[in-house]
């Protein structure tokens, strides 16, 4: 039997915001994703989308359950190994862009590649390549503070893509963008998914964005309410 690319097994997550207060963010979630998929996780606010993405990306640990990326367990492993795993296999796009403020767009894009130890020329070549695909070539020498939200988010996507990760996790990447920028960004991400074969999983509650996915998962109250393949 073929092993799924990303295997989420019986994940639960409980937060304890205060003494004797607990919030069950995810309840016994199991999902499988194949390589090269373009997936949306949607649902109302507080349904657990961000928590699920964080756990799938190794940024947070589940209270129970396991996540396997390409057969490798990413839950319950030590932070140093997890950092390497995120560096080499997972790209992140955050709702608030989260670029490194003191680095230019070019340096932000090259950052992960440099962490991976890629050569100067390889970094340059790859940066130019993704910058052209995401139409940010003219922004490469600008600092994040000198760019609009849409431009920053495209740089953030370029940073996530440049290191050729196996998986990109995008948490509401269009939430802070106007509809035109949002659609443009989603088209670019879709193109990257098709051109480079990167598995992209993103969360959203924007119907326009949700409609672009080929695999959609509806979360409600921390549980999977629907798992469909509309495309």
């Amino acid at each position, binding site marked *: 039997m073929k092993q799924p690319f990303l295997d989420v097994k019986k994940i639960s997550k409980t937060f304890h915001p205060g003494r004797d207060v607990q919030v069950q963010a995810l309840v016994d979630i199991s999902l499988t994703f194949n390589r090269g998929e373009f997936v949306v996780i949607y649902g109302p606010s507080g349904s657990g989308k961000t928590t699920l993405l*964080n756990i799938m*990306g190794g*940024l*947070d*640990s589940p209270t129970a359950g396991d996540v396997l990326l390409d057969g490798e367990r990413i839950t319950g492993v030590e*932070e*140093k190994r997890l*950092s*390497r795993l*995120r*560096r*080499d296999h*997972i790209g*992140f796009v*955050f709702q608030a862009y*989260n*670029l*490194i*403020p*003191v*680095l230019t767009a070019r*340096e932000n894009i*090259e*950052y*992960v590649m*440099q*962490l991976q130890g890629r050569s100067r020329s390889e970094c340059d070549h790859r940066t130019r390549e993704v910058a052209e695909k995401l139409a940010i070539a003219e922004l490469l020498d600008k600092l994040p503070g000198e760019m609009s939200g849409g431009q920053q988010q495209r740089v953030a996507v370029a*940073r996530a893509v440049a290191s050729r990760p196996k998986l990109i996790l995008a948490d509401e990447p269009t939430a802070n963008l106007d509809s035109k920028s949002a659609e443009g960004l989603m088209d670019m991400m879709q193109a990257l998914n098709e051109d480079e074969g990167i598995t992209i999983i993103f969360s959203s509650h924007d119907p326009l964005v949700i409609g672009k996915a080929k695999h959609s998962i509806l979360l409600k109250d921390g549980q999977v309410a629907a798992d469909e393949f509309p495309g």
Partner: protein
Amino acid sequence: MFFKIAVRNIFAYSKRSIITVLLLSCTTALLVFSTAYMDGSHGRMIQSSVEIYPGYVQITHKGFRDNPSLENLIFDAGKVRASLKDFPGIAVLTPRFESFVLFSSEEKAVGGMFTGIDPEKEMHVSRLAASLKQGSYLTSNDDAQVYMGRELAKRLKVGVGDQVTFVGTGADYSFAADTLTVKGIFQTGLFDFDSRASFVAKPYFDRMMAAKNIATHFIVQPADPSQAEALAAAIGQRLGPEYESASWQQTMAGLVQAMRVDSIFGYITLGIIFIVIFFVVMIFTLLVVYARVREIGILRAVGTGPGQIFSMLLLESVLLGLVSVVLGGLIGGSFAYYFHINPIVFTSFEEQFKQYGLAMTAMPTDFAPLIILRDMAVMFVLSVSATLYPIFKVNAFKPIEAIHHV
């Protein structure tokens, strides 16, 4: 890349950087100058105390220092002189004969120290000649002329040109007495010394006290005073077990101890300042680093390892520390150099200084580049170590906690 981020963060958080650099460079300058002042004043104190009269190296017959009696005199001063002729490291070698007599003037009788010296050589081993206040200094040809301390003269109520008689015991236990004319009056600033010391030319002393070729001790002026200890040891070896050769560190052990105690108190004061600065820098860094937790979370999220984050933050602290100590070292060093060339003058504290054996009011700092570098290194280690706890603390955040940190 980490270096680039560290440097840019230093400029991006310019307020933090400026305050840290100011704080650390001022402390470094303070440390460098305090050490230079402390070492300078101790050096001057030692120089002053040693050079007023005791000398850098003292040669005595074995047992004289513990029991300064007539049995323990150097009975063949010529032999000592001959043994040390052309001895490397000796600039001047001169004998002294110290005895105690009863002085009497028309009005008073006072006990005092009566010492035979070689006036010309004595000028190179002590400050007696330089301490002249009235009259004139001695010469070898002076017969029945005395050079006495100002306080002793006061007690005897005599001045230059007046006569005093002395009664004492010669080296052969004979009775010695004569009438002396006061040729000069000196004041070293050491009250006790000035109130009991008197000097006559050695040829006269030898005749009166039956002390020809006899001395209580020799004083050696080293070519390099900083090598006094080594020279004393070498002289001791040359002269053999019959004699004792002691450097000023041994003959003035009390002064050395006092310097040590003063240094300890000085360093305790500096230590308290350092502890305060350490915690100020630590708390300040903690506040600043906490303001950057989210940024650190982003770096962690995209794959930067905890060790790399640690290195990057440490690099920032190292760079700030380096700039601070270099700046502080230059400032403190410049002050130390300036006051080394132009000593600080404490005119109004003259009397207090004299009580501590300082016959001078100008206090130069000690400009020693190696000591300055040592102080800079201490401050650098202190500044970097003050940032370790905040770095560990912020690095302990999970990436997701850090990203959502407010």
